[in-house]
């Protein structure tokens, strides 16, 4: 009797678990399919090759090229800036700092915690910075805010891959008379390159998709950004603003823009996966 109940319970929970996993996976499928089904009918070449023309927000011609380019510039600039800070940080923690020391542990802890800070707070902080430096809403402001947002995750994931570089490799390099800087640059960074690139691409993807941090800092404009000091459009905000217009045609374009953004993100994440698989071939095992 007790035995039967035990196995009934086992079966019940096993069933629940499979159902939960299936539900979570189907949420992803449902989201992707909804965006595809709603966005595809409004997709056109104009959407990706033209900027909003006069009367665009009333349903007239044009596309969201301004937002696509704006997002790419923004995420690209932010990723570059974050690499400039994040890579040295990850190298420092693994090559220069005392291994297993307090400083290393505290830094990793700080990045984990920072990674949990929401993007709206980075946006608000970026806004206070901009007021402090007398900057207006601009591409540069957005780049700084997004760079700060993606820095913790980038530094931490680079740190994780660099940590996996075998200690012996460093020691072999030192034994050949290399300095720590040469070792960091020529041995460690090269060995960890695939992982580093994956970290960069993932951070880039997060930069493209973020809306809350750019809302204060980057502004919005219908023109393709021509200068770091001018406002720039971004895809997430273009989606948001178009959805707010009560004209079916414009809302449809919001769905199409959401489709563009989703495809962009999926492409970046796919590239990250393929790249890391391909580049591992050149790594000393």
């Amino acid at each position, binding site marked *: 009797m007790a035995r039967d109940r*035990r*196995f009934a319970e*086992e079966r019940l929970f*096993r069933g*629940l*678990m499979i159902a*939960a*996993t299936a539900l*979570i*996976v189907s949420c*992803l499928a*449902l*989201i992707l399919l*909804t*965006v595809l089904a*709603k966005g595809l009918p409004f997709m056109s070449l104009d959407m990706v090759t033209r900027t909003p023309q006069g009367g665009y927000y009333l349903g007239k011609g044009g596309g969201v090229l301004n937002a696509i380019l704006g997002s790419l510039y923004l995420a690209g600039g932010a990723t570059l800036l974050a690499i400039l*800070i994040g890579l*040295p*940080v990850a*190298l*420092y*923690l693994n090559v*220069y700092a005392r291994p297993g020391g307090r400083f290393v542990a505290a830094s990793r802890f*700080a990045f*984990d*915690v*920072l990674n*949990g*800070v*929401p993007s*709206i*707070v*980075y*946006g*608000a*902080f970026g*806004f*206070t910075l901009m007021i*402090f430096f007398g900057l207006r809403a601009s591409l540069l402001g957005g780049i700084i805010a997004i760079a*700060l947002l993606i820095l*913790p995750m980038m*530094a931490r994931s680079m740190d994780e891959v660099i940590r996996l570089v075998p200690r012996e490799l460093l020691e072999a390099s030192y034994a050949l008379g290399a*300095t*720590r*800087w040469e070792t960091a640059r020529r041995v460690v960074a090269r060995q960890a390159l695939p992982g580093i690139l994956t970290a960069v691409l993932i951070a880039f*993807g997060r930069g493209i*998709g*973020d*809306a*809350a941090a750019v*809302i*204060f800092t980057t502004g919005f404009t219908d023109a393709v950004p021509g200068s770091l000091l001018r406002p720039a459009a971004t895809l*997430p905000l273009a*989606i*948001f603003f178009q959805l707010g217009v009560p004209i079916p045609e414009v809302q449809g374009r919001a769905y199409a823009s*959401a489709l563009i*953004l*989703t495809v962009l*993100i999926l492409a970046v*994440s796919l590239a990250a996966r393929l790249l890391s698989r391909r580049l591992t071939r050149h790594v000393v095992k």
Partner: protein
Amino acid sequence: MKDAIAGKTMLALTLFAVLLVLLMIAGLYLKSRPVLSSHSLGELFFSTRWRPFRGQFGFLPFILGTLWVTGVAMLIAVPLCLLTAIYLSEYAPARVREWVKPLIDILAGIPSVVFGVWGMLVVVPFIKDTVAPAFKVFSTGYSVLAGGIVLAIMVFPVIIHVTLEVLRAVPSEVREASLALGATRWQTVKRVVLRKALPGVAAAVVLGIARAFGETMAVLMVVGNVPKVPKSVLDPAYPLPALIANNYGEMLSVPLYDSALMLAALILLLVILAFNVASRLVLRRVERSLR
């Protein structure tokens, strides 16, 4: 020589990055000082009156809005995530695991505005046309429930990911010992694995809560944004992050408004930091004790 310069530069960059959080607290605090000095904390936190044009800044509706939406999201997400994580770690064949994990990573990478679009297209009409009529009430669909559902899906990856790490850290000898004594798998999970992993699982849930607190765009698009204290899950709400994001345009033209919004950001930051620090400390302890 070059080595020393590189080392110093890297140390400086590391210190900058680590101290970023203090810089953020200081920056937001400086900006929120005007409203803090002209209003008492009690008024700011416990008043429901939000009339920026008359200089009244009561955050209570927004704080409660955040708690309602997060609460609903957690009620949905926690059981589903625990079941999924346990399945992936204890039951699923390797092939299933290899398929499901990348899918969860993809879910984590979807931008929040896309979640918002999906929520407006699917969740909001579902609540308006199906859920609300079933309870014989009227709802526009833009509600706490809509925010909670969308938010739940957004925190799935966080909770599942961290729970999986925690479960993986439980040594397999523990399971084998229990199975050898004749316990079923579920009994082993329930009485042995989960008991050992409990602090870590709690930390995973707290990380999920912290994530939910700060989520802005998706929630803002489906939650209705009415600055009143919600009375049911079918009422609209107005969480703190939505308040900040929605009013960036007008805040500079009303005195103290920008200061109040920066205070909102500071509150969010401090609460989320506390949650993150607590759960990360627990996770670190768990990792060490199980190793």
